[in-house]
Structure formats: structure tokens, C-alpha cells
């Protein structure tokens, strides 16, 4: 039944009318992706662990030396190495209060920046500029944290909102350029990343930010009233940033699937021409969604400048978050809950990886390899589908952007 590629499904309405279970969720495109958003990253993780184990074995130099004389014992050593490495990885991620604290602390900016990229994807835009938006948002928060004297109850919200505005402007700029001139957001956001990074480097050496007496680009410690309060006392780094991230997950969910502007974002993402027909202002939507995306990245920047002991900021505070965010959004299939889950996963891998390196002597680079493998498996759903025999519909590739056209 493939005449012209489309056909109506056989008409099999139940006699008492159509079923209504969960209709609303599916109408807004909600119900179906949640399960998928969680299933695929999990399967990809399992595969990445298997390949990672193989890598640990292959790179076990001592065991290879013994391979000629005592092959069985050498193989045993290798398996033992895998076991120890993964045990330490798990312990480092979940094995103690400190481990959990580190996992959640590491996840916080990842989730926020992942949401930023996901929102862009939903509107058909590929925001590679999370890194730059983190820098700009983080600097806005830093300035408020250094120079505005307010009680904590006000100081933190003001600093956080400043970060959102800063990141939003930086993202919105790329959106505006696309809307006005057709400049492709991939190009503009990459370039804005460089601008933001070098601006940060310079500005941290000016008297506005630089710590007195310092010669490197490093800020003075921010005022105590602007520091994000820790949750389990100052010996654990986890702070209220994680609540901001979780609130952002629900907010983005609401925006995308329950608000009118989210409907417009998604319509423009799938079909700009149909959006135009439907009377939507596509140029405005590009700017708006890039502002929102930038604001979310800005939040990630705020958690880096307001929540990272010892509360002095160096020029590298964006770390690798901006790029991990792209992987996360893909992994979470651009669904807020998927991003939350993937962010926690990456946070656990990174936090656990540090412990693994220290305790098992396996380089933390393995974690990066595994993150990359996870993304490859996500990008190749056919492969995961073949390995796990997942139904085709469950493993459809995520819609990313509508291509390079204007």
C-alpha cells in the first residue's frame, strides 16, 4: 500500500467511538516521545559500556605483556581491570553522599545548556553557541555578584536574571541576524563563541573584574550574598542550582508543549512555509527562540560563576559544557525530560570518571570516549535498533534542523 507513499490507516474505529486515553498528551506531541526519550539513551549507554570495557582491556599494557606466557591469567587480569574501573566509576557517581553531590553538581550546567540546544532544535535551529552564551551570561552574573550589594534573597535572583538577559542577548543576536539577513545560525553562533571567549579573557584582566594583585585573568571572589547556597553544607559542592535546572526542565516543557509560542516554535521548526501560511511571524520566532535558548545557556553560566567554589572566576569557566550540551540535546531527543535524564547521565559519567582515574588508574579520557560513543549510537539509531531489536518507531532519528537552507 504505497501508492504515493501515503495511505489512510485501515478504518478500525471502535464501535463506541475513538479511544481517548492520553489523547491530550499525544496531541501536543508529549506522551510518545517521553518513553523514547529515555529508552534510547539508556540502550546507547549499555552499548557504550560494552565498547568501553573492550577499550579498557585492549589498553591494559601489563596484561598484554603476560599474554604470551599465561594467556588465561592475562585475560583474567583484563576482566578484573574492567570490573575495578566500572566499580569505581559507579562508586564515584553514586556510592556516597559526596558522589551524589558531585554527580548532581556536575549535571546542573549540563542540563541547562542541554535545554538551550534542545529548544533551538525544536524550532529548527542549530544553536552551537551555548558556549558563548554561557560566557556572556556568566559574566553578567559575575558583575552583579561583584559589584551590586544586596541581601542574598535579592542578590541571587538579580544575578541569575542578569545571566539570562546576557545569554539571551547573545543568543538573540544570532536569531536576529538570521531573521533579518538570513545568516545561518550555525555560522554566527560559532563565531560569537570566539568573540565571547576572547572578550571574557580580556575583561577578566580589567579592573572591573580582576582580583587585585593578580596577573592572570581571574576575578575577585564574588560577594557572599550572591553565592548559590549549598544544600548539604559547605563540604559538599551541590547547591540550589540543581533546583533551578529542574525548574527550567518543567518550564521548557510547558513552553514547548503547552504554550502558544511553543506551538509556533515547533511549527516553524518543522515547516517555515506552513508557519507563514498560518500567520505566524517566523522572523520574530527565530529571534525569540534564540533569546530563550541563550537565556537558558546564560543560566548555565550563572551556575558556573555563582556556584563554583572558591567563587573566583577564571577565563575557562564555560569548560566543555557548551559542546556537551549539543550531545545532550541529541541524546535526550530534544525533549526536556530526555535532556534531564541525559544531563544526569553525563554528570554521573564525569563525576564517576574522576574517581575512576584516581582509584583504578584508568584515564578519565575513557569517559569522553564513552560520551562520544553514546552520541554515535544515538546518531545511528539503526545500529541500536538492530542490536536490541527495538521496534522501528521507537528508534526514529530525532528531527534536528531542516537543513542549511536560509
Amino acid at each position, binding site marked *: 500500500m*504505497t501508492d504515493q507513499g501515503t495511505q489512510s490507516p485501515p478504518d478500525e474505529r471502535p464501535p463506541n467511538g475513538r479511544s481517548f486515553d492520553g489523547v491530550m498528551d499525544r496531541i501536543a506531541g508529549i506522551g510518545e516521545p517521553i518513553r523514547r526519550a529515555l529508552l534510547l539513551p539508556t540502550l546507547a549507554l549499555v552499548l557504550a559500556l560494552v565498547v568501553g570495557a573492550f577499550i579498557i582491556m585492549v589498553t591494559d599494557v601489563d596484561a598484554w605483556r603476560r599474554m604470551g606466557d599465561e594467556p588465561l591469567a592475562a585475560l583474567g587480569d583484563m576482566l578484573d581491570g574492567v570490573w575495578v574501573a566500572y566499580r569505581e566509576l559507579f562508586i564515584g557517581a553514586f556510592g556516597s553522599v559526596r558522589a551524589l553531590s558531585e554527580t548532581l553538581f556536575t549535571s546542573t550546567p549540563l542540563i541547562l545548556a542541554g535545554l538551550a540546544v534542545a529548544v533551538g532544535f525544536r524550532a529548527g535551529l542549530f544553536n552551537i553557541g551555548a558556549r558563548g552564551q554561557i560566557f556572556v551570561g556568566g559574566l553578567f552574573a559575575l558583575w552583579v555578584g561583584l559589584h551590586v550589594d544586596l541581601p542574598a534573597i535579592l542578590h541571587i535572583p538579580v544575578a541569575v536574571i542578569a545571566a539570562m538577559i546576557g545569554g539571551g542577548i547573545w543568543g538573540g543576536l544570532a536569531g536576529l541576524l538570521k531573521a533579518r539577513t538570513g545568516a545561518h545560525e550555525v555560522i554566527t553562533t560559532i563565531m560569537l563563541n570566539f568573540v565571547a571567549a576572547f572578550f571574557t579573557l580580556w575583561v577578566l584582566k580589567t579592573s572591573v573584574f580582576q582580583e587585585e594583585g593578580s596577573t592572570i585573568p581571574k576575578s575577585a571572589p564574588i560577594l557572599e550574598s550572591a553565592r548559590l547556597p549549598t544544600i548539604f553544607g559547605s563540604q559538599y559542592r551541590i547547591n540550589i542550582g540543581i533546583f533551578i535546572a529542574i525548574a527550567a526542565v518543567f518550564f521548557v516543557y510547558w513552553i514547548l508543549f503547552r504554550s502558544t509560542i511553543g506551538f509556533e516554535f515547533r511549527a516553524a521548526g518543522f515547516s517555515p512555509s506552513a508557519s507563514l501560511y498560518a500567520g505566524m511571524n517566523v522572523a520574530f520566532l527565530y529571534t525569540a527562540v534564540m533569546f530563550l535558548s541563550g537565556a537558558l545557556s546564560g543560566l548555565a553560566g550563572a551556575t558556573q560563576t555563582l556556584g563554583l567554589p572558591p567563587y573566583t572566576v577564571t577565563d575557562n569557566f564555560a569548560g566543555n559544557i557548551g559542546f556537551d550540551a549539543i550531545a545532550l540535546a541529541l541524546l535526550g531527543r530534544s525533549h526536556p525530560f530526555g535532556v534531564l535524564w541525559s544531563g544526569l547521565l553525563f554528570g554521573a559519567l564525569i563525576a564517576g570518571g574522576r574517581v575512576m582515574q584516581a582509584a583504578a588508574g584508568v584515564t578519565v579520557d575513557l569517559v569522553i570516549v564513552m560520551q562520544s560513543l553514546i552520541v554515535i549510537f544515538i546518531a545511528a539509531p539503526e545500529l541500536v535498533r538492530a542490536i536490541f531489536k527495538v521496534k522501528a518507531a521507537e528508534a526514529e532519528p530525532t528531527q534536528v534542523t531542516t537543513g542549511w537552507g536560509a
Partner: protein
Amino acid sequence: MTLELRGITKRFPGVVANDDVSLSVAPGEIIALLGENGAGKTTLMNILFGLYSPDEGEVLIDGKQLELSNPSASIAAGVGMVHQHFMLVPVFTVAENVVLGLEPTEALGWIDKDAADAMVREISDRYNLAVDPDSMVEDIPVGVQQRVEIIKVLVRNARYIIFDEPTAVLTPQEVEEFFAIVRGLKEDGKGVIFISHKLNEALEIADRIVVLRDGKSVGEANPKTATENQLAEMMVGRPVELEVQKGLAEPGKVVLSVENLVVLDDRDHRTVDGVTFQVRANEVVGIAGVQGNGQTELVESLTGMRPSLAGHVFVDGVDVTEWSPRAIHKLGIAHIPEDRQESGLVLQFTVAENMVLDSYYDRPYSRGIQMDWDVAAHSSERLVDEYDVKTSRVDVPVSDLSGGNQQKVIVAREFDRDVKLVVASQPTRGVDVGSIEYIHKRIIEQRDEGAAVLIVSSELDEVMALSDRILVMFKGRIAGEFEGATATTTEVGLAMLGSGGSHD
């Protein structure tokens, strides 16, 4: 010496695409395989061509059993297929495309260009195809590209040729030329299977008509004695009104008034070049014309999707020139866009989301900035029932629906409010007979309820059937005006070609 399909059954998950279908073609015979979209025509032909393997049944060529699910075996046995979507490399020449896969080579593997050209020329001359082997495929019109596909098939010595919806992409003149080519193939002893859902074409070209419905062969018809109505009934399974039933128009006040409108296309050509006309309440005005004479840009400009260079558009006396699509929509204009998959629908969205695509921003579908999906779902349920959209539920992606049902989603969305003016562009393109009947009925209903209706279609039959008044567009201007009741196909057709036409 025949091609025979015997008892072909093909099941896909949840559907029987072909159910015990048998069919035969003799050399020098043209069979039309007629059926609605989704009746199983293409599946059957893909089985014959070796792209699918059937669950049951066999294919015999000259009494010998054909090895199934192997396109090479089918080609070797003399079966050729001209697909609906051409499989040509645009930046290659005609000759290069034709020999792709069987390149005649010289020493060192250079392609023997002269040999390739000669092959194309020989076939082109023999069947009167008038194809130049040296042209780039991207530079030649669609009708000629189709002939390149035919040459490809003939070069591979096909004796049985399948055409999948060959006329869908052709202009009326190209269709005539195409039919002449098919008759030439017939005289040369080729067996032809012509897949279509157009009744008049099947009657014109075929020696025998086989009708498929829901995967089953529902019978054969003799084109000499059968009528379009009989065929339509066989296809749809119930009597179909092919003639649009409508009373006389009693035009009221002017609703749409277009004055000296000039519109540029994407390449800055004056595609609409000073057009003036009016549409009154209770009146259907049809714009006929060969595709590409400015109709697309005219409609886009009327509905706010394309700026105009000069001139004015009035709706109910209000100057709406340069208004936004939303402002125009709010005035009470229903717009059925030319390309439903490109602009009319967001294919990845559900039926319900598409039902509110241009009214989501207001009550009852949203309050403030919050969507009310509950209301949208219930309203969609109602519209799906009211407009006979065949879908199991309103939360499936609209891309799962057939073309006819997708179009009904648009019709339902646009007509379910107070409509002053209907602007319908190609309202039934690629839509099955049953849905065409339905959509036409709904359009006439809008007229009878007092709306002004503007129909733009490249199907002359459709314009003739619906319109109370016919305008012909040629090179961006109105080249003729006719009374719907008295116009003849010939005189309108001539005006479409830019010759004749009266301004009465």
C-alpha cells in the same frame, strides 16, 4: 506470448495490499490499472518489477515463471518501469543518463559517448520522441525528462512497460504527446500497463481497464462501452457524483475586488502583470490557466503571503493590500493553499494540531499564552466526523493520512467558521475520486451560504465544473472571461494557450 500475474497476495503489517490479484497483458496491448490512492496499484507493479516479493502468487512471462523479488531478473525478462518520480541525474546529459549502469566503454574504460548518443538517437527517431542526447537533464522540461525515462527502458529491451501515474506531472498538451508515444509503443508490439486514477485518461488510451479497490481486483471494463461514472463506482465502491450538482448562482455584492495587481515572483519577474477582477457573494469564479502563468503568485498575494508591487486588493470594501496572512485570515478568508504538504499542513504534527494551525492563538484553543489542548482535541474530533476525515484518531501525525484525507483536514479547518471569501488553489490535486466529490460539494455549499469563492486550478475540468464565471490567466494577465454555464472546453483551452478568448 503474454505477461501474466496470477493470484498475487501481498500483506504488510495490518494491511493486505494485494489480495489474490490476477492480471495479464499481451504484446501490443494497453492495460489501464485504475484505482484510488492506496488501492494497491503501485504495490502490484513493484512486485512485477521485483522490488517486493509477494506472499502468494506467481508471475509468468511467455509461459515461463519469473524469478520474484529480483529487479535484474525482471529487467532481463523484458519488464521496464517508468516511475512516477524520475530517477535521473540532473547534471548528466540525456545520453549519460540513458547508459548509466550499462555504459558502452572503449579501451581504458572511457565511456563511448558516440555509441551512447547513437543509442539514444536511434530510439528517439524510431518512436518520435524528439530527445536530444546532448541536453542536460536539468535543462529539459518534465515532459521530455519522462521520455528520457522511456528511452532508458527501451534501451534495456523492455517488451512490457509499466507507467506509474505518468500524467500526474504533465501539462494537458504534454499528456497528448505522451499518449501518442504510448500508441507508438503499442504499434511496435510492446505491452503497456498504465497506472492511473484519472478516469478520462484510462478511457482514452486503454484497450482494457482493470480496476483495483482495497487491494482486490474488482473487475474489468471495456473502454469502448464503459462510462466515467461506472468506473468511478467500481473504484470507490458506491455511486459517485462526478458532475458537480449546483444551482444557478445569484451573485450578490462584490466581496473580493482586485485592481491592477502586479506581483513579482522569487526571481523578480512580473509574474502577475496588472490583473483586475471581482468576485461576488454567492458566486464561484474559476481561474484557469496552464501552471506557471502567475496563478500561484496571485493567490499568495491575495492571502498576504507575498507582497505586491502595485495595485490594490479589497475585501468587502476594505483595502487589504499588504495585510499580513493572519489579519486577512481574521477577516473571514478561507485559504486552501496550492501545496498542502508544503504550506497547508505541518506533516509531523497531529491531525488535531493541524486543525488549529491558524486559529490556535485565540479562544477557544488558547487562553492567554496557554494552549487548551482539551478543547482542540474535542473540536478536532467533531471536525473529523463532520468533514468525513478518515483517521483512526486525531492524535496521529497527519502524514499518516491519505492525500484526500489530508486535504479534508484543511477544508475542515478553513470552512469551520464564518467565511466571507474562499480562495482555493488546486483544491483537489492528488486527491482520490471520493474526496474530490466531497470537497467540491463543500465548496459549492460555501457559495450557497453566501461566500464568494475563487478557485484556481490547472485542471480545466475542475474549473469548468465548479465555476459560475471563468477567467483565464496567460502570462500574468487575464486573457479571457467566460460564463460558466455556456463556456466550452475548446474555447477556454484556446485562451489558456494565449490565442483567442473574449472579453465579454
